[in-house]
């Protein structure tokens, strides 16, 4: 899989390249700012992009804007946006560009190399990956009357994992319960949130996030 990288910190850029190459990815190009990446981008020459949010020249949200730009040129082009802190509005903007093939993670998630690589693969396959922190932020904004509040802690946890794009099997492994129990939890969640149950991975995330950001 061919991956583009934009990250202004030299050490992190080199680390990302090393990591991705070590995991069998091909690094199709890496830049220290978003503009150069956009200038060099040609549709069909890459399968996904990993972007730092904060880069020169203004050090605000260049990476996010570049992600949106890439996706306006190639609809649903997979982008994984990394950031030192998460901001749920950024997540909302990313999802606003179509929820297929977007990821938004805290930078330090790269430390869990396996999980990070899995997340990148899911994004490249058209999945959606949101950092648990984003989900937590969105939750904390909900009011008390919100049906989200009626979820049990376990259901909450499961919804978080759903939002990260995990399938039932992976969720069952993650929280050490049976798959049947997971489907039951998910059924309950969707019932409480008034959503029709569905089985495919990213559609569930969409449903949850679409509901959360409404």
């Amino acid at each position, binding site marked *: 899989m061919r991956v583009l990288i934009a990250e202004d910190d030299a*050490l992190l850029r080199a680390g*990302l390249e090393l*990591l991705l190459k070590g995991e069998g990815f091909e690094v199709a190009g890496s830049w220290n700012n978003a503009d150069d990446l956009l200038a060099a981008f040609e549709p069909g020459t890459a399968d996904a992009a990993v972007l730092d949010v904060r880069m020169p020249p203004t050090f605000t949200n260049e990476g996010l804007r570049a992600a949106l730009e890439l996706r306006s040129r190639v609809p649903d082009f997979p982008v994984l946006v990394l950031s030192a802190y998460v901001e749920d509005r950024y997540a909302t903007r990313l999802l606003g560009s179509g929820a297929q093939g977007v990821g938004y993670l805290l930078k330090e998630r*790269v430390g869990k190399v396996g999980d990070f690589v899995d997340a990148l693969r899911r994004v490249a396959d058209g999945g959606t990956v949101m950092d648990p922190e984003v989900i937590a932020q969105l939750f904390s904004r909900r009011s008390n009357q919100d049906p989200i509040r009626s979820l049990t802690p376990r259901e909450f946890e499961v919804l978080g994992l759903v939002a990260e794009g995990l399938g039932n099997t992976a969720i069952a492994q993650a929280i050490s319960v049976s798959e049947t129990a997971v489907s039951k939890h998910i059924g309950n969640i969707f019932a409480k949130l008034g959503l029709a149950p569905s089985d495919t991975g990213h559609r569930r995330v969409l449903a949850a996030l679409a509901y959360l950001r409404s």
Partner: protein
Amino acid sequence: MRPSQAGLRTRAADAVFLLREAAYWLASLGILVAGIVLLPFLSLGIGLYALPGVLGTLDLLAARAQGRSAGFAGAVIPFDRRRLRGRYSFGELASLVTAPETKRDLSWLLFNAAFALVAGVLALALPLGALLYLVVSPLWLLFPADAPLEMTITITSWPAAFLGMLLGVAYAVLAWLLLPWMARRLSEGTLAILSPRRYDELSRRIQDLSAARASALAAHAAELRRIERELHDGAQNRLVGVVMMLGLAQRAAETDPAAAVPFLERAQDAASEALAGLRAAVHDIYPPVLDELGLGGAASALTSRSPIPCSLDVAGLLRAPAAVESAAYFVLAEALTNAAKHSGASRIEVVLRTESTSREDVLVVEVTDDGRGGAAVAPAGGVGVAAAGADTGAGTGAGAARRGADGTLHTAGAGSFGAAGGDSDLGTGAGAVAAAVDVGTGDAGSGTGLAGIARRAAAFGGRLVLSSPRGGPTKVRVELPCAF
């Protein structure tokens, strides 16, 4: 009442003042006549072209008169008066005409035109008359009988001469009493008419304070942004690097434990860098030495560490707010490092002092070296936050500072006080104004050197004045207002 020598001296000064005012009265009369002649033309519109000239001359005359009166009365002019120069648009002219300053100038003009000449004539005539009667009356015998000495009275006898001398005494007494009174009334009247009323004074004071407060808030915000940047680019990114390298090491160890070692080493390096970054950031927020020793002591610690022999003068230094002292400390540290690195100097002189103006105290840091000179402020990288307003272009910090022909460079602060900036030499010389001073968003590396100094000064509403002709000496002067 006995004429003492001191009394004579003050009366001589009174007379000189009054005579000078009378001499300038001619100019007042001229401008008054010009103004009255201009009035009908004003309604026709043609007069508008002459208006700036008339107002400018009036402004000049009033300013001079105010200066003379203040000098005579030993008074302090509470605020710098408005000075007119340059060209004005129609709208500016309109507001100029209705400005309280113009009204005051006009009142003064009428006052001056009415009284200055009379006072001047009296100041000349009374002493001269006294002198004439006292000296000439006794000489009546020298005049022939068919052409006797005729003054106010015809003097043909000693009693008449005595009367003449009495008249002289009367003139002298009158002069003695009137001269100080007239001089006082004229100077005090001039000052009272031309000085802003209490209300204006207070409203201007409030404006100054508001500006100072706004710039304090701006400086605070800039400082917070700087710290956030420093932590984000430094420690935070390095720690992500640590986590990343550890992840890679873990991954490598799964297949070959030996392959993990290079990653572990890089993780360690990154962790050390993160620590160094944190240490610098913490130190930058408030150097502990400042707390212990005060700015004077901290400065002497800095100068004694300088590789180039360094003298320090802190005699005129007063305490300043912690943030300002901290800024001064870094400015000094950076200036010394800069001099040690680039100047090739054999001596450095450091002066720290507090300069008080009527508006505020300014903490001044002056670092002078006898090195090779030719220093310039590097253009700021990244996005410059414009100071003087001109070069705000996003992403173009280039050409941030222009050098004047004399090798003097000024950078004005983003939050510099309007009034303080306006009456300084900023904005006068063609090439002497600098514009963009990068506030906290430039390259990571530009935090050092003169650009860093300029940035730090700007954050506090202060400025850097650099004089560094080729061949030296180099003088770095940083002014930090203590208004907050």
